[in-house]
């Protein structure tokens, strides 16, 4: 018990690593929540809710141009960038902050009435002139202007034509996602946050355990401390054992905090009520696996700098290859066939099946059980290697 208390005393004195990863976690979650709630949304919640961030510069400022902007603002978030420079606009478009930027030239309303298209609206998008944003919004703008012209040709006045055009175009075709289960076709914005937090979980927990708690283990491996422990009446294996238990308990505390967030924030959502138990087991296995990896690394590594280097490389490489940072469906077949030999792959695959709308991986109970089994095998095998290497070092000492 004395050693056990000592471990956590040391941990509290070297809390910096834990605080850094704590901040990273909180920032990530807050950014996710903010992005999802503020999204215009290029992040599709349901097919019907699809809308875009649109920006414009109106050099015409005619009833027609104002009517067009008003119409586009019905389902989209529209911003006036007339005070921004060309370079600023170009940067904002490149970073995807506006899906479609358009400039209405001066004298545009007259040109539309006369059917002149040379001096038309100039747009910029991130996906180019052949992308779906250009297609959809270009089509909406053209529909608006052509409908307006048609109403003018029917003898309506300018204002009447503008109002009638908006009235006509406001009636849009409904979109339905066809799925086996109706609930599979809809996703709550909180589910997006929960799903993504669980997706990042293996990366974060490995960082917390290896860089946050691992430094404490390394300190107890210091020559002076080892020599002091050697002359004490405590068996040599006990210090190592306590370190491992300390890592494990720290991991379980972090896991409990993550799960508390999932269950409180995601209360009542489909993902938590239907697949909560899968998330619980999957993340617990992932925690055990990351504890084993951290124990293995801290066995061999003697300095904090080296631990930082190795953990960063191992954590980032596994996260990139196994679909933590980029959805698994976008990762190449060859990369995925290699990542099957890494524990994060199975954690991410099981998590993917908890929200098939977001991940495009259909739920399959057998597949989930296989994921759990493989994760458990990783836990056992990595722990075994860690224990063997540990005992060898004790014998050598």
């Amino acid at each position, binding site marked *: 018990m004395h050693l056990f208390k000592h471990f956590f005393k040391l941990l509290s004195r070297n809390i910096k690593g834990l605080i850094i990863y704590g901040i990273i976690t909180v920032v990530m979650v807050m950014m996710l929540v903010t992005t999802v709630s503020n999204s215009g949304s290029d992040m599709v919640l349901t097919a019907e809710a699809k809308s875009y961030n649109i920006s414009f510069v109106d050099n015409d400022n005619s009833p027609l141009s104002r009517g067009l902007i008003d119409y586009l603002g019905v389902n989209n978030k529209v911003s006036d960038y007339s005070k921004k420079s060309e370079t600023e606009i170009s940067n904002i478009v490149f970073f995807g902050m506006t899906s479609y930027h358009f400039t209405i030239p001066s004298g545009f309303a007259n040109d539309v009435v006369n059917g002149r298209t040379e001096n038309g609206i100039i747009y910029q998008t991130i996906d180019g002139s052949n992308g779906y944003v250009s297609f959809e919004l270009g089509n909406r703008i053209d529909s608006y202007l052509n409908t307006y012209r048609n109403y003018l040709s029917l003898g309506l006045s300018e204002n009447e034509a503008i109002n009638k055009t908006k009235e006509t175009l406001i009636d849009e075709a409904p979109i339905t996602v066809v799925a086996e289960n109706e609930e599979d076709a809809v996703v709550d914005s909180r589910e997006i946050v929960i799903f993504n937090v669980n997706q990042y979980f293996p990366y974060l927990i490995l960082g917390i355990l290896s860089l946050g708690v691992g430094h404490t283990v390394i300190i107890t491996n210091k020559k002076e401390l080892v020599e002091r422990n050697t002359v004490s009446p405590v068996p040599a294996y006990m210090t190592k054992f306590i370190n491992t238990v300390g890592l494990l308990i720290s991991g379980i505390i972090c896991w409990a905090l993550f799960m508390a967030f999932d269950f409180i924030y995601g209360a009542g959502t489909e993902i938590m009520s239907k697949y909560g138990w899968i998330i619980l087991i999957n993340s617990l296995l992932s925690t055990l696996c990351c504890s084993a990896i951290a124990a293995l690394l801290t066995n061999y590594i003697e300095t904090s700098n080296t631990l930082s280097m190795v953990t960063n490389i191992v954590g980032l490489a596994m996260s990139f290859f196994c679909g933590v940072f980029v959805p698994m469906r976008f990762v190449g077949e060859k*990369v995925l066939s290699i990542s099957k030999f890494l524990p994060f792959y199975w954690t991410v695959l099981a998590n993917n099946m908890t929200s098939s709308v977001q991940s495009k991986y259909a739920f399959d109970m057998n597949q989930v059980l296989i994921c759990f089994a493989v994760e458990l095998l990783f836990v056992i095998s990595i722990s075994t290697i860690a224990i063997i290497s540990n005992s060898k070092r004790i014998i050598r000492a």
Partner: protein
Amino acid sequence: MYKYFLRERLRNRNFIFWCLAFPLALMLCFHFVFGNLSTSTEVTTLNMAVIYEGTDSMYNRSFETMVDGLTEEGSNGEEALFKLNDYSKAEEVKEALINNDLDLAFKVYDDKVEVLISKDYSDMDIAVGKAVADTFMNNYDMMATAFEENPQKAMELISNLGENLDFTAAKKSEFAEETPNPYIWYYYSSFVMGICFNAMNGVDMVANLKADAGYHAVRVSVSPQRKLRLIISAYCAYLTIALGINVIQLLIMKFALNVPLGGSILKLVAFVLACNLFALAFGVVCGSIMKGTIDARGNKITAIIMTSVFLSGEMVAQLPGMLERSVPIINDINPATVMNMALFRLAYSTGDFDFYINMIKIVLMAVLFITISVLILRREKYASL
């Protein structure tokens, strides 16, 4: 002294890892993952079916006529927008959508068109389906209004509907490619992060030259060498290694990872030189001003660098865009963003203006920090050593 500093640096494993290996490892990860992502979303022929519900109305027949037009190839040999699939029952269409045999379907009922899409829909499926359904519904609505309000003009309107004018045109791209790959930012950001880590070298330079910061510096300070010569030697040695590392990284980026770096080697060299000088001088100034052990000062500078790199979009590439929209001043003064932007403009822009604007900022910052660093290191006097 140049040789001494050179050897001392090359033996520092930490420095080699964070400046050379870590950015390269990140770039390799990006290459394996983003290499598979396509940014192209061109319209291709979509597999489609139509479900007609209710009686054989005018509305249904009009929709059928329009769909027929969209399943034919264009006169210039353009691909048809849709390939129409025949299903006798609505359940069969839904089954086909669930099994991904169809991209989308239209359900026509009660003077309304509904777009049905499969769960694995693409954004283009929605865009095309919605555009077709909306256009039909709106045109039909307009025709109905025309026949009600002005039947004489209605026939004229029918002929007008066929000649929809296109009032939008894409802006002529200021970039060499029409749409720069947004994932390219991650490569530039990693490269710039490696350069920024040179600030750690600046802290080590302080440990080697400022007598109250380390025992190495005490030895160097009491040597008969002139202080300015020591500082210049240290700068040159640290810069030599940093440039060597950058050359390796740039070669790998260019030839192994296919990252565009622009056509001008001279500008690239000027960019790399200015950035490294800035990072080094920044490290020296911060290392001299900050209190604590050299490790503690290093940790504080790492925190500053990581914040700067984070804001420049290393982890979330959209972050500089969010800042540009709401607080553009942060992008203007954040060194990592300025460097990223200069490299991006160098690689992609057809004009040089934005590249030079960013380069001027980097050079000004570099000159300012070098001057301060030399003044601090050279003028320091000690009561005892």
